[in-house]
């Protein structure tokens, strides 16, 4: 079973690497890069949402801050893009620690509201601070690869996002196999109980929150360099945040590849709706509808249907007592 899944992962990785060369046109390379970007972001979202069960609808705040941070460093301070990207991501992560300390004090629906408030505030700040950010007219970021034409740039960013996805997946897997990860899952199951067992739940949640923000901020920074034009209303939108949630839930938040699978379905579907229905708001309605259906009928996601639980309810109820009698006798 383990070798099968490892082989499958290698095959998928090979396919992903070959994809830009197999794609018949540059539009599909562009769509592929976008899909991989969303996959990296939802995998990153799942570091918080999947392990701890804290559903953040506001992760686009970190996407937008990562994008604007990178863009501003490049445009205003002439920092080379390869430096601006990690510096901006680390600044956002530090910011996320501060936000996290306040945000993870509240649970459930209250946390969702706080996360939405966060992205709305960031949107207003960036729009309002015209002298720095350019306000609602946006920020133009020069391409890091001026020698390449548009199609080739899509190819380069496809691989950059793919590398980010790889790191996010490895991080998720490592956390999942650590005691830190066991503690995060325990928080999802019963936070007070985890505390009573000595788990510093506050610190754990802030760490997961910040780690999750880090990769989303890196995706935002790459996005800024790739698109070259930042619109505060788009990068700080609830939509990007809900995409991360939808993809993760659809694929399955308990699985390493759940958010990736969700992204492979939702992102191309979103692009398709955009082309089929034009630049209307109908694809937003479609996204909302799918999110409702997933939450109602498939809260554990697609992958949960295919992975068998290791032991079912078939464990006989009296087995412990029988064993006890065996011990006693």
């Amino acid at each position, binding site marked *: 079973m383990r070798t099968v899944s490892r082989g499958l992962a290698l095959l998928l990785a090979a396919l992903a690497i070959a994809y830009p060369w197999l794609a018949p046109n540059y539009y599909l390379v562009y769509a592929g890069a976008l899909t991989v970007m969303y996959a990296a972001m939802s995998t990153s979202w799942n570091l918080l949402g999947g392990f701890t069960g804290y559903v953040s609808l506001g992760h686009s705040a970190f996407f937008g801050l990562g994008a604007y941070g990178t863009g501003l460093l490049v445009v205003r301070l002439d920092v080379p893009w390869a430096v601006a990207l990690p510096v901006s991501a680390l600044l956002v992560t530090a910011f996320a620690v501060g936000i996290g300390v306040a945000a993870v004090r509240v649970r459930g629906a209250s946390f969702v509201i706080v996360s939405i408030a966060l992205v709305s505030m960031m949107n207003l700040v960036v729009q309002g601070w015209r002298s720095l950010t350019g306000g609602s007219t946006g920020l133009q970021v020069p391409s890091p690869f001026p020698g390449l034409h548009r199609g080739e740039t899509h190819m380069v960013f496809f691989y950059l996002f793919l590398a980010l996805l790889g790191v996010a997946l490895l991080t998720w897997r*490592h956390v999942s*196999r*650590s*005691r*830190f*990860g*066991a*503690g995060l*899952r*325990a928080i999802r*199951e*019963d936070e*007070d*109980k*985890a*505390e*009573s*067992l*000595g*788990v*510093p*739940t*506050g*610190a754990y949640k802030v760490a997961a929150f910040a780690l999750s923000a880090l990769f989303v901020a890196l995706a935002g920074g790459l996005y800024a360099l790739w698109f070259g034009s930042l619109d505060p209303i788009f990068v700080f939108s609830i939509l990007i945040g809900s995409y991360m949630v939808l993809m993760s839930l659809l694929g399955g938040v308990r699985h390493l590849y759940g958010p990736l699978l969700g992204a492979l379905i939702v992102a191309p579907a979103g692009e398709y709706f955009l082309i089929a229905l034009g630049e209307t708001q109908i694809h937003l309605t479609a996204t909302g509808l799918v999110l409702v259906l997933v939450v109602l009928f498939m809260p554990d996601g697609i992958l949960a249907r295919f992975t068998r*639980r*290791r*032991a*079912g*309810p078939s*464990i006989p*109820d*009296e*087995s*412990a*007592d029988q*064993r*006890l*009698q065996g*011990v*006693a006798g």
Partner: protein
Amino acid sequence: MSSLRTEGLTKSFGGVRAVDDVTVELRDGAINGLIGPNGSGKTTFFNIVTGMVRPDAGRVRYRERDITRYSPHRVAHAGIGRTFQLCRVFPRLTVLENMLVAVRRTRLRELLAGLRDTGEIERARHWLRRMGIEHLEEAEARDLSYGQQKLLELAAVLMAEPDLVLLDEPAGGVNPALIDRIVGLVRDLNAEGRTFLVVEHNMDMVMGMCDHVIVFDRGAPIAEGPPDSVRQDPRVLEAYLGV
């Protein structure tokens, strides 16, 4: 040296004084019992001691350390473990994962180390074997019977190496054979040097197992002493029987 000592512990919910000026001291190295009618403040007392509820007044001292304002995980790190009234395990984690959640010391390297840390897994298996549930380590906790979950909860608490273990109704909802087993386990664990505080309604269990019994009524202790003397105490009879 005293194990756990409280001084003037008070907590009100609305107009009700759930715990009213409680000054008690546990016998170190003993199995202490805490009994009292329903609503006499036993669970609130547990919750204050373990940091889950902040007292309005009073102090909690453990091994001469003031732990009154400690958060629950720091109370656990100080060496106090607890089980809950209606057994709480992590339903969608496996039995082994349930065991590996407990943290006694926070060392970053240990936390980032894999779940495959063989030393820790061996320790977990040791406790599971003592509870007689080691054959279930791969099962999800929600698939266990109630009695098995109670044993798992106790095993997970012991993973954090507590010196003082608070048990909230260990006999609640389990069959007589298992009660005997739990009593045997508590006696063994006590003989190994752990102090216990047991809240329980099963009088036979309390009187048969405890060395020292504290009786609560309306949020305050009304009697304490060895089981035999407590059993005869007129104040206790009055609280329980209303005579």
